[in-house]
C-alpha cells in the first residue's frame, strides 16, 4: 500500500465515523425527550455532517479519481466503509445514545487534538476546526452521563446497561493497524494506543462522579476500520443512499 493509499484509507475512517454517527443522531430529530434535546442532538449531527464533508472531500482529493464527499458517502457499499463499529450501533434509548456519544466524543476529542498538530496542513486545519465543535460535544455528552448516572434509579440502571452493552466496541478505538502505523511514521496522525490512557482516565473520573461502574476489560469487537461491520450498517446505507441509487446520475 502506497502512502497515498494509506492516507486515503485514514481519511475515510475519519469521514465515515462522522457520517455514520451524524446519521444516527439525525434519526432522533423529532423524537427526543424534550424540545431542547431535539435542538441539541441536531446541532451535534449538523457538526458531524459538516466534518464529514471536509474529511471526505479531502479523501477524494487524495485519491485523485474525481470522487467528492457525496460520491464517497452515497455510492460505496458497506464493505468499503471504514467507520468504527461503535458509531453504527443503533440509538436504543436515550442512555444508549448518550453512552455511545460520550465514548466517541472523549476519543474524538483526544484524536483531533493530536491531528491538529499533523504535518499535513489540510488535516491540521480540519482537525482544529472540528476540535472546537467536539469540545462542546464532549462537555454535553459527559454532562448527560452524569445526569443519567446520578439521576433516578431508573436512569442509573439504563445508563449502566448502556455502558455494559457498548463497552466491547471501545477496544477498536485504540488498536493500531498498518494504516495507523503509516500515519504515525509520516507524522500525520497519532498512535491510537497512546490515546487509551487519557481516554480511560476521563471515562473513569466521569463514571465515578456519576456513580457508575467501569466494566471489566474484556473481548473487543473489531473490524469496522477494515470494512467488516455489524449488520446495522447495511440498513443505514439503505436509507442514506436510497435516492442516489434509485435515480443514478440525477442531480439534486
Amino acid at each position, binding site marked *: 500500500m502506497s502512502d497515498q493509499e494509506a492516507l486515503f484509507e485514514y481519511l475515510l475512517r475519519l469521514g465515515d465515523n462522522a457520517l455514520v454517527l451524524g446519521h444516527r443522531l439525525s434519526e432522533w430529530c*423529532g423524537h427526543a425527550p424534550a424540545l431542547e434535546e431535539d435542538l441539541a442532538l441536531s446541532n451535534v449531527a449538523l457538526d458531524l455532517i459538516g466534518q464529514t464533508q471536509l474529511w471526505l472531500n479531502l479523501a477524494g482529493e487524495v485519491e485523485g479519481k474525481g470522487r467528492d464527499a457525496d460520491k464517497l458517502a452515497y455510492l460505496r457499499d458497506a464493505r468499503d466503509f471504514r467507520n468504527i463499529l461503535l458509531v453504527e450501533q443503533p440509538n436504543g434509548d436515550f442512555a444508549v445514545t448518550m453512552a455511545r456519544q460520550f465514548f466517541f466524543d472523549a476519543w474524538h476529542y483526544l484524536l483531533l487534538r493530536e491531528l491538529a498538530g499533523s504535518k499535513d496542513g489540510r488535516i491540521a486545519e480540519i482537525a482544529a476546526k472540528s476540535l472546537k465543535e467536539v469540545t462542546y460535544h464532549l462537555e454535553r455528552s459527559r454532562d448527560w452521563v452524569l445526569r443519567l448516572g446520578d439521576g433516578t434509579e431508573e436512569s442509573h440502571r439504563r445508563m449502566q446497561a448502556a455502558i455494559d452493552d457498548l463497552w466491547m466496541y471501545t477496544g477498536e478505538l485504540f488498536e493500531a493497524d498498518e494504516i495507523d502505523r503509516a500515519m504515525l511514521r509520516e507524522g500525520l496522525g497519532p498512535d491510537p494506543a497512546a490515546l487509551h490512557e487519557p481516554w480511560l482516565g476521563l471515562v473513569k473520573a466521569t463514571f465515578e462522579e456519576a456513580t457508575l461502574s467501569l466494566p471489566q476489560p474484556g473481548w473487543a469487537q473489531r473490524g469496522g476500520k477494515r470494512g467488516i461491520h455489524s449488520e446495522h450498517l447495511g440498513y443505514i446505507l439503505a436509507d442514506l443512499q436510497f435516492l442516489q441509487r434509485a435515480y443514478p446520475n440525477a442531480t439534486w
Partner: protein
Amino acid sequence: MYAQMVKTGLERIQSKEEMSPEERSFQERIDADIKIEPKEWMPEAYRKTLIRQISQHAHSEIIGMQPEGNWITRAPTLERKAILLAKVQDEAGHGLYLYCAAETLGVSRDELMEQLNSGKAKYSSIFNYPTLTWADIGAIGWLVDGAAIMNQVPLQRCSYGPYSRAMIRICKEESFHQRQGYDIMMKLARGTPEQQRMAQDALNRWWWPSLMMFGPSDADSVHSAQSMMWKIKINSNDELRQKFVDQTVPQAEYIGLTVPDPDLKWNAERGHYDFGEINWDEFYQVISGNGPCNRQRLRTRVNAYEEGRWVREAADAYAAKKAARAQAKAA
C-alpha cells in the same frame, strides 16, 4: 400560520358603550398600536384566544417536524441533508419560542403538551398528509412555508408583545425555508424526466391542502371579527389565500409546473387569479382526525413524550441533588 379556526368564546362583538372602563382603555391602546405586555390587564377572552392561537401554532411546528423529519435520513446529498436537518431543527426552535410566548399568558409548556398529546388541542391540518417522495420536501418548503409566511408576516405587527416578537424571529427563518423548498423544486423540475414527474406529483398532492391552510372563509365569522379588532388577526382567510395563489402561480409557471386546478385563470378585472372550489369536506375530515396521518402523527408525538419521561425526571432529580449538595457545602 397554522391556526386555522381559533374560537374566541364570544358570541358577538361588544360596542364601545357596552365595555367596562378597563375594557375600553384596553381597546384604545390596541387601536393606538400600543403593544400589550404580559403583566398588563387584558380581557379574559383575549388571553384565552391568544393561548389557543399561539398554542395551535406551536403544536403545528412540533407536529410539522414529522413529515419533513421523515426524509432527513434519506436526503439525497450531504448538503441537502444538513439543510433539511437545520430546517426541522428551526421548527423545534419555533415551537420553543411559541410555547414561551404562551407561558407569558399563564399556561405551562407541560399543560399545552398534555393538551396536544390527549388529542384535545388542534394543529394545522396540513401536517396530516404524508411525505411520499423527496419532492414533497420541496413542496412543503415552497407551498406550506410559503402559506405560513403569508399569515405570519402581518402577525409581526400583532397586539401582543411576546407573540409579535416571536413572529419577527420566526419570519426570518421561514423565508429561508421557503427559498430552500423552491430550490429543491427547481432542481427537480429541471432534472431528469423522473425528477420532473416527482415534482409535478408533489405539487398535485400539496396544492389543495396548502390552500386549506388558510382555513374556511371567515367573512361572516364573529370570532375573526373579534380577533381582528384585538389585532391578533390582521387579514381575513380569503385575503391571505388570494395573496398566496397570486404569488405562487407564477412561481410554478417559472419552473414549468402546472397548478392542478382547471378553473385557475387570471382575472384582469380583479387583478387576481380566480381559482376552483376547495374541497371543504376533506378539510373538516382531516381536522377532525380522519386525515391520512392524524393517528400516526399523534402516536409518534405521544411516544416521544412518554419515552422521554424518565430522561426528564432524571435531569430534574440530578439538578435537585446538585442544588442540595451546593447548599450543604455552603452551610
